[in-house]
């Protein structure tokens, strides 16, 4: 796996490009802030994105097991699922990694064997995108579940107070 070694050698640059790509999806002043404020409590968006991208990329190099990536990717997707993005804009950064790698490794990619290796690695990125899609839908489902439960709780309370609910149910049994 010459490619993986090459990716490891280029890791810093690739991650930097990937972070830039995702931060540039925000309006300019927001993007500057997310990139520059280092305190994780003053800048949860920037901090989470920067750090999780590093972990995700490192794990992609090690394995094609998406379970190892799930939590880190979910932290980013949670944020982007409630920001001002369409679904494709919210998760598109995963696919953006392909272009970054091709551009960073253009001098290395000369013959078929290298392209075969790249195709195999890009397969992992495709899986990353599919996982991002699952997680995004999960977040949106969660939003609607929370909203629906709020309404249910409100009406349950009203009915309970009016004596329309079986006492066992009212106790949550």
């Amino acid at each position: 796996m010459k490619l993986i070694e090459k990716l490891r050698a280029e890791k810093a640059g690739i991650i930097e490009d990937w972070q830039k790509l995702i931060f540039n999806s925000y309006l300019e002043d927001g993007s500057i802030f997310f990139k520059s404020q280092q305190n994780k409590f003053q800048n949860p968006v920037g901090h989470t994105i920067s750090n999780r991208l590093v972990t995700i990329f490192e794990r992609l190099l090690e394995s094609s097991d998406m379970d190892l990536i799930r939590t880190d990717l979910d932290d980013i997707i949670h944020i982007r699922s409630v920001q001002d993005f369409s679904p494709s804009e919210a998760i598109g950064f995963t696919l953006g990694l392909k272009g970054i790698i091709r551009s960073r490794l253009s001098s290395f990619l000369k013959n078929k064997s290298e392209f075969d290796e790249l195709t195999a690695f890009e397969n992992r990125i495709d899986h990353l995108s599919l996982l991002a899609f699952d997680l995004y839908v999960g977040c949106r489902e969660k939003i609607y579940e929370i909203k629906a439960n709020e309404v249910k709780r409100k009406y349950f309370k009203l009915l309970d107070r009016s004596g329309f609910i079986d006492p066992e149910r009212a106790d949550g049994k």
Partner: protein
Amino acid sequence: MSEKKPTPESVAQIEFTPSKQGWEDPKTEFKKGTFNWAAIQKSQEYLDLPNPRKWQTTDEDWKLPDNWKQIIFDGLRDRLDRFRSLKLFMDVCVRCGACADKCHFFIGSGDPKNMPVLRAELLRSIYRKEYTLAGKIMGKMAGGRELTVDVIKEWFYYFYQCTECRRCSVFCPYGIDTAEITMIVRELLQLLGLGIDWITTPAANCFRTGNHLGIQPHGFQDSVDFAVDDLQDITGIKVDAPVNKKGAEVLFVVPSADYFGDPHYFGFLGYLALFHEIGLDYTLSAFASEGGNFGLFHSNEMMKRLNSKIYMEAKRLGVKWILGAECGHMWRVLHQYMDTMNGPADFLEVPKSPITGTVFDYAKSTKMVHICEFTADLIKNNKLKLDKSRNNQWNVTFHDSCNPARAMGLLDEPRYVIDNVVNKFHEMPENTIREQTFCCGSGSGIGTDENFEMRMRGGLPRANAVKHVHEKHGVNVLSCICAIDKATLPPLLEFWVPGVEVCGIHELVGNALVMKGEKEDRTDMRNEPFITEESKKDE
């Protein structure tokens, strides 16, 4: 088939960067999940508001009055003349940027118009164009903007995103209070009949029945009776919770959510247990049945109108002083405005605890004491028997609600109370608590269903700090002293930090309180058994 077939290259061209747009462009897109529904006509009419009509935020035509521009200019002129603070705030900002990254909405969204300086600029640019010489002559070059319908829509979008939490004002070297700018713009919008329903309808309810929920006196009595019964189930003790009792020593005012919403209700049970145990001579009022005041999010005049019932009821019932429950913006109104709006309350006495003899000097003018100060004083004077282990199911952190923290400086009393009723407590990081506390993201009347995504963005910095103590120390409950917090933090945490619940401080007090004559198998305020060493072994 005149359309050109796209090439593979063009299909693969994905744009990751948004197009550049100057802040001066007021065009606003009202995306589902980010804005609030318009006030309904019935509520507008009930409050005699201008331009009552059927309209909706998503309509292209907001049905403004023909002379809407003049109304705004006259309204702004009037407020510049009346409020010197507004005039100063318009002129004195040097755009140093100290506030820029302090707003929770900006931190969570990255939208530049949520930077307090730029949000204020949305009004300041109009002010500059109309009221300053430089702006009149040089227009855009001097930072001026033309007032258009798009600007009005932009104001509506962004000034109903500010939660008036005042975190930004802590950092402003000139002391500019951006919350007050938000208040003024909301007043201006109201002149055109542009309110949101979650503020206007509760205000109309409150004007009619005394509380935001529209609960009438007999319904209020029912709710209190219900709580008395629940508390009896829990403790085995039937407490007395008087309503409209003339001649009581203290009038107790709560936000209406306390007797209707969860988890507020568990704290309400805690108050009733506490007052019973110390034998406080108090009364609730079925008319002053709301401490909260959505008038504050509407206009100066509406706030005064809704607040007036508190002193009126204190006078009618002949009490000596007033005690107020856990609530956020309620205390901004009571502590900072009530005295000069509807006072002086010279018919009341300076509050003095009948149990400890402590005189609450800080409230000698308003005559109203915060429940946390009252309880802290009881604890300090050893008047309560408390068993901390009864809160062993909770690993607690404390969220400083914006208004008690920043508007009245109530920082240590809640912590003192918590420290005496729980065994496990961990603070969140210091730049997220006390004066620098992060807002829940849903205050000032915008904690609605329809702007849920916006609330999740605004609440992210708060939730992020909770997540930190949850992961590091195993914190499983976020305590707070604000009714809006108690309503809006549970869904926020369910989204960002599942596994952390929300409670009021007096729920914890009620749990820890050892009551004379309580039944052997008494439970906590949620009617759950206490976790004892024996129950642990059983597990």
